[in-house]
């Protein structure tokens, strides 16, 4: 199937899980709570660094150039 346009980095095969953090307490976390922030790196866009996996396929410059098969 293809990477659906309403999906975000969460479903993208180029996303590499970085970790979860609780920034209010400067703490790393190994599970998700309401306050956790999960962050990823993109294999195709290393220049972006770490970010929240919230870029939709329609907004993704990588996705626009290719059909990602998952």
């Amino acid at each position, binding site marked *: 199937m293809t990477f659906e346009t309403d999906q975000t980095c969460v479903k993208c095969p180029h996303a590499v899980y970085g970790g979860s953090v*609780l920034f209010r*307490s*400067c*703490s790393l*976390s190994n599970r998700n709570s309401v306050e956790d922030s999960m962050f990823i790196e993109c294999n195709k866009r290393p220049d972006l660094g770490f970010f929240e996996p919230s*870029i939709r396929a329609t907004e993704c410059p990588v996705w626009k150039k290719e059909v990602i098969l998952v």
Partner: protein
Amino acid sequence: MQKAAIIGLDGVPYGLLTDLADRGIMPNTRSLLGDGAITKARTSMPPNSAVSWSSIFTARNPGEHGIFGFTDFLPNSYTVSYHHSMRLRTQPFWQRNHDKRTIIINVPATYPPQALNGVHISGFVSPKVEKAIYPSEQSKWLTETGYMVDVTAPFSESEIPRFIEELKKALRKRVEVGLKLLDSKWDMTFFVVTGTDRIGHYLWDAYENTRNQYHDDFIEYFRLVDEAIGQIIESFPENTALMMLSDHGMTTSGTAYNINTLLKEEGYLSVEDKTESNYNAIRANSRAFAAETNKIYLNTEARFPRGSVKSSERVDLEDEIRDLLTSVRIGGRRVVKTVFTKEEIFDGPYSSEAPELVALPEDGFSFKTGLFSKYLSTVDRLQGRHTEDDAFLYLRGADDLDEFTHLESALLALRTQYGGLKL
């Protein structure tokens, strides 16, 4: 040849350090304080470790180094991006002093570690130990030592004992690795303990309240930190220029006040139902929103994809929001101590990337910035929050530090004892 060393204690306020030293709980620290000068120090704004450590190790204002928090936004996007050392716009001191071999251990906001003359183990946020060291050839060794970048946050009361044991283990491993690296040739070193901040966030009441069931654990942890300081310093030659400092202070969290809930109630912010993409939920008619505790962004046309604020409206809107925030009272008490505009606190070519406003809470309050909460105020499960005016700066051999009461000038203070430092 003289060496220079910086020991950092993340999140340790001046009052706590001098209290525990005076009471003999930190005897090595007490001995140091008798052999130099210590002062309360102010942090860069906002009082956040990423910002403050970046200001310390560059000796620059955030407007020059470009770091305004652990998070920012990708260009023209509401997607949150996280701190990355390649975002730093000016060189840290170890890059300005390439002729000196430098050992860096656990300095926050330096991941991924960049090439340098020496060894660099980056601190929070370093997702994986094996990627946290330069040169990468030492990755296998570091992993095998059992080194921990950080501890895992406790999510419930029942996890506190595990959390305390992890803090002790992480400290022990950090010292072991530090001593091993300092056993080789070096000219400058920068060693940071971050467990001091974590225990403050989760167990601050255990410091202030002697009846708290974890009071003895809190005190014992700082006794171990003092032992660690003693071990590290003992490995230095006697004439080493030595600076010790914290990046911010800590105080009781108190009542947590959600700035975004206020902005929603007052019509400045409108969000879609909660989605997995957080700030993407901000609607086009929104005027402002808060992020990462203290930062308030205007939803400007220039910066955000659904921005609604024109540049000509900016100043009036900032005034409105500042008046709104400073008018908030709970039980007759002010919640917001002060609100700065970026022009008041940032100076440098990257100031335009800063949030438009930075707010600081009054004593007894802390801020939250969750977008989807319905509550203005809640009891915070965190016991400690950062403060901006009571970090500490200590310099061995100094008579006074009156000229250096802002952490951005800490390296200038060190240079009075270590003249070869290029800044």
